[in-house]
């Protein structure tokens, strides 16, 4: 239990330990702790910001979807209208076409009939002459009966 130089030695040792701790141990660790604190705070702030941004984005998305739906609806109604128009137009065209075809067909039929008639008209004289010759058993001259033959032919 003697008090001696150890007292001073211990004081010096203590001072050196404190100095070392103050210089090399305490500052870096506390700095790291502060840095981590800052990091965590930043992370939390970023998370909060992210959540808020997500909320905003969701709202925006809903608005965009709503707008798109509206647009789709107008487009559909426009398309329907246009569709009806096209159908009507096609109907009209088809009707016109059909009428045209009918008219053309009718004209052709008439033309054919006329041609047949003309042909018949050309041949009726000969037939009549031939028939008459057979009946009279002599030659009938075309010049003699020209007037009546013409009349016959015209009646056709």
């Amino acid at each position, binding site marked *: 239990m*003697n008090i*001696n130089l150890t*007292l001073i030695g211990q004081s010096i*040792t*203590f001072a050196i*330990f404190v100095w070392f*701790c103050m210089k090399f141990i305490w500052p*870096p660790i506390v*700095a790291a702790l502060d840095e*981590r604190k800052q990091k965590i705070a930043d992370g939390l702030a970023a998370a909060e910001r992210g959540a808020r941004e997500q909320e905003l984005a969701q709202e925006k998305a809903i608005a965009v979807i709503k707008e798109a739906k509206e647009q789709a609806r107008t487009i559909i109604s426009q398309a329907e209208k246009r569709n009806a128009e096209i159908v009507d137009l096609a109907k009209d065209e088809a009707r016109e076409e059909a009428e045209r075809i009918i008219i053309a067909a009718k004209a052709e039929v008439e033309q054919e009939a006329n041609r047949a008639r003309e042909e018949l008209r050309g041949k009726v004289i000969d037939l009549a002459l031939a028939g008459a010759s057979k009946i009279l058993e002599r030659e009938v001259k075309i010049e003699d009966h020209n007037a009546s033959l013409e009349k016959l032919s015209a009646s056709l």
Partner: protein
Amino acid sequence: MAGDSLTQTEYIKHHLTNLTFGQHPDGTWGMAHSAAEAKSMGFMAIHVDTMFWSISLGALFLYFFHKAARSVSADTPSGLQNFVEWIIEFIDYSVRGSFTAKNDMVAPMALTLFIWILLMNVMDLVPVDWIPSLAQAMGIHFMRVVPSTDPNATFGMSLAIFALTLFYSFKMKGVGGFASELTMQPFQSDNIVVKILFFPVNLFLEGVSLLSKPVSLALRLFGNMYAGEMLFILIALMYGGNFLVAAFGGVLQWAWAVFHVLIVTLQAFIFMTLAIVYMDMAHSEH
């Protein structure tokens, strides 16, 4: 485990004698071979065991903490860093709770005090005969392994803290401020004559309270650890008895060690906290 060649008194005395290096009465320098010889060396001697164990333990503390501090990162901490951070945060919390001024020295000082004293106290839990027997086998006659049972160690720290409180008292309050703190209270008066009459009374009271701080700080730690060590030594004496006494001694040693863990930690914490409080008092102005 009390040696056959030693009486119980000799055994206890042996355990309480430091390994002392100093000047022999005949003028030569060397180790003291007995307690009386150590005493005769006076002030110009040094306790080699106290110095060795306290410096080793302090170096151990600084080594591990420095290792953690060197590779410290703000990301996920490793095992050692985690442990060190846990202690640092605990110390930081204690310092913030008691120390109101701004001084970057106080927190590292508190950390050093707490861990160093804790490590020195923990040496008390090593069975009392292990290390001294080992030293004996190596030819070293005396070995006290708990530096905090040496008043030189506890007073060494408390006097260093006392010097720091005086330094910061002068620095923060100035010579006049510190002097008035010592002489103007606790008795105060508006009358200048009475005021002067109160000077010596106040100086006596404040002087006692000022000087009692380092003394009580050192003696509290020393007393607790010395008593604890003494109890371990007395329990160890039971191992010299018959089987039943020795077994009871084993149980007692275990029980006291468990209880002593509390004292070990508590004393380190009290020493640290009081050092912080004294530093705060040195910084705060009235």
